[in-house]
């Protein structure tokens, strides 16, 4: 009998065919979603309206990753949510099967294979890279050594005009109190090598825009990471007369989306020089503020945009003296909600509500410029639905881009992009495969055979 380990068990998972190796699961419980490459068998399971990613691994690895993801979620790091581990599986003949780690599919997420493909704008690529660098720096701030940073292990979500990146694979991860510089740089090295490999692979597969160069892309990751880390943790020294630089450092960090929880300020004995260094910084400056004011849980840049609109709303409606939370409530009822409720239910799966609101604000701005008048939100949202939203692909569960646009090539297995496209190559004979090692190799025993050791030493 399989054993389920879960904090919030979902009873609908229990009747699934756990006695089959994941590779042999029937198609009616699976969905083909675009995803990165992996060395394990990974499938998406659909149960009712929910989708889970299932990964078949050794029990030890599955448990480790489940605990790692649980910890990351507790630390509010951007990572997928673990839903359980199914272990103790046996097949119909009673032979043991590996455990399965289940994670909840991240709604509205966009895997990289669909983001770097032909026609992608250079700015978009820059934004994706920035999102990835922010993810890596945030994980490093929490003491998480990833060990396998790669595009395949990241999901992106739209975040106003930017992207937010999420960790989807923590198999090799470790949580420490803090990371040494060596650990961080090692993780960055791994990221650079893996991403170079993945970009090169996309290029070989004709899925990377021609104007993008893998080497330039990974160099950009390195530079951006070092810059961001310096801003987040670096020491700054200045004359005692430039006290405003403390304030501007905090502001710069806020603009980057981080709150400063602890700033170390040291003055020289005579007060001539001041040294500052942020000690504790937390990501999510704007999203925390929006959540506190309105209860809306959004990505960081969406929050920034919504807060700006809230400020505008206060100014326009003479609410600048009203308490902020009261004004926020009015804005929620009179600006945000009407836009979201105007979206027909059949189009709701195309974007998240906060993203829709952001896009409607953009739409209204362009329309107002074009028509040289202040277009009301209620009017703009109708235009947005008609001109933009109805033409967009569904993103709740994005199944676009299983194969590149305009391509006739077929994936070997639509459920597993790790196997590449169908071609008609036969595999050559492997001289090692019959014995699992080079012919003539002395096979090491699987137990401590001291007599064999003596024989070897005697030779």
């Amino acid at each position, binding site marked *: 009998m399989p054993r389920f380990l879960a904090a919030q068990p979902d009873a609908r998972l229990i009747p699934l065919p756990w006695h089959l190796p994941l590779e042999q699961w029937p198609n009616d419980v699976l969905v083909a979603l675009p995803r990165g*490459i992996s*060395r394990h068998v990974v499938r998406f399971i659909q149960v009712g309206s929910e989708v889970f990613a299932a990964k078949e*691994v*050794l029990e030890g690895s599955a448990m480790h990753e489940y605990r790692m993801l649980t910890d990351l979620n507790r630390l509010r790091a951007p990572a997928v949510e673990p839903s359980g581990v199914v272990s103790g599986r046996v097949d119909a003949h009673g032979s043991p099967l590996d455990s399965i780690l289940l994670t909840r599919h991240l709604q509205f997420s966009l895997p990289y294979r669909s983001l770097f493909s032909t026609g992608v704008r250079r700015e978009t690529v820059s934004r994706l890279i920035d999102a990835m660098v922010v993810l890596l720096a945030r994980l490093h701030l929490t003491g998480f050594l990833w*060990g*396998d940073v*790669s595009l*395949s292990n990241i999901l992106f979500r739209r975040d106003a005009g930017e992207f937010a990146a999420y960790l989807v694979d923590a*198999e090799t991860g470790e949580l420490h*109190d*803090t990371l*040494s*510089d*060596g*650990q961080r*740089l*090692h993780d960055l*090295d*791994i990221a*650079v*090598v*893996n991403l*170079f*490999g*993945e970009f*090169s*692979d*996309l290029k*070989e*597969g004709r899925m990377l825009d021609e104007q993008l160069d893998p*080497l330039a892309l*990974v160099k950009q990751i390195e530079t951006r990471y070092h810059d961001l880390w310096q801003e987040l943790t670096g020491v700054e020294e200045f004359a005692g007369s430039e006290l405003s630089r403390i304030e501007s450092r905090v502001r710069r960090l806020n603009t980057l989306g981080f709150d400063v929880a602890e700033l170390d300020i040291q003055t020289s004995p005579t007060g001539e020089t001041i040294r500052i260094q942020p000690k504790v910084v937390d990501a999510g400056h704007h999203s925390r503020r929006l959540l506190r004011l309105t209860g809306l849980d959004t990505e960081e840049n969406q929050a920034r945009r919504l807060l700006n609109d809230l400020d505008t709303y206060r100014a326009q409606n003479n609410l600048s003296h009203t308490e902020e939370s009261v004004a926020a409530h009015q804005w929620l009822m009179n600006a945000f909600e009407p836009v979201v409720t105007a979206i027909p239910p059949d189009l709701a799966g195309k974007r998240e509500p906060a993203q829709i609101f952001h896009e409607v604000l953009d739409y209204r701005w362009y329309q107002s410029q074009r028509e040289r008048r202040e277009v009301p939100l209620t009017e703009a949202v109708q235009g947005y639905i008609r001109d933009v939203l109805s033409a967009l692909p569904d993103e709740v569960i994005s199944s676009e881009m299983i194969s590149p646009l305009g391509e006739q090539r077929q994936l070997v297995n639509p459920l597993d992009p*790790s*196997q*590449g*496209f169908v*071609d008609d*190559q036969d*595999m*050559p*004979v*492997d*001289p*090692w*495969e019959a014995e*699992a*090692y*080079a012919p003539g*190799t*002395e*096979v*090491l025993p*699987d*137990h*401590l*055979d*001291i007599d064999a*050791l*003596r024989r070897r*030493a005697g030779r």
Partner: protein
Amino acid sequence: MAAVSFKDATRVYPGADHPAVDKLNLEIGDGEFMVLVGPSGCGKSTSLRMLAGLEEVNAGSITIGDRDVTDLPPKDRDIAMVFQNYALYPHMTVADNMGFALKMQNVPKEEREKRVLEAAKLLGLEDFLSRKPKALSGGQRQRVAMGRAIVRQPQVFLMDEPLSNLDAKLRVSTRTQIAALQSRLGVTTVYVTHDQIEAMTMGDRVAVMKDGVLQQVDSPLALYDRPDNLFVAGFIGSPAMNLIPGKIVEGGVQVGDYVVPVAREVLAKTSGESDLTLGIRPETFVPAEGNDGIAVEIALVEELGADSYLYGTRAGLSDEEKLNAPQIVARLQSRHPLAPNQTVRLRPTPDSLHVFSNASSKRISD
């Protein structure tokens, strides 16, 4: 290629009351396969990570060849962590999958192709170079991952529990492959494992660690035949060495009603102790004639091939004493008509006895 040297290398985690690695002194020869082994928390992984540059060295130093690398960032140390990157890229050929990192380092194309071809020959993957990796087996994927490290031509290979995520079948074949490749390549290798069988079968030498302290470093056979202290004696060997406490008496050490003969010079090395621990490997026990051996009450007899494994406790103990008494295991070469609850006399063969001081835990026999 290069030798590696830890000199008093120490790692103390902030807030910890004792070092994770305490003054490690270890010389690893050029081309040597060194295995670090020990129980969880013994400092083996931390030592490897200090060498890789992932853990700060708080005191002491580490050199690779004649370079002091103590404060160098990981990528400037000319080392390769093997099996760090397993992912195979489906649209790239096997050759590109092995050599892509060289392209990033601007190694010229001709040199790249040469290195990849050499590695592929070594790994039996020559015929696969122009193919896509989609249909490769688990073992072949492992070999491509090894190839990635080989083409970089590092001074040192580092492997941190590389087999822990593999299923049992792949683990056995990968272990054999790693050992065979290492001896052919002759690249200095530091390998961390918690599994003494892996350590004993793969390493040229094995460093046993406990609580951050190096206990002994020696060839696998020397560790087995001459363990330096009680910890190594108990850790190396499967089934483990019998460690039997006894009182010092004239001519030897008394265990129950039998005096195990111990040479006078050995007993002379004790400093006022009244008790010692005797170490006897299961296979060095032989059935004794008459009363000339330790009386053992048999609990279980297991026949494995030509050998019988006998499990029991010292005879003549009360039921309560039996609960805490160490188990005695003997591997007898030929079959004996033995059954549970029977008492049998066993003695160690001459020259096979290990004697340890309880006070210092150190070996005092030769």
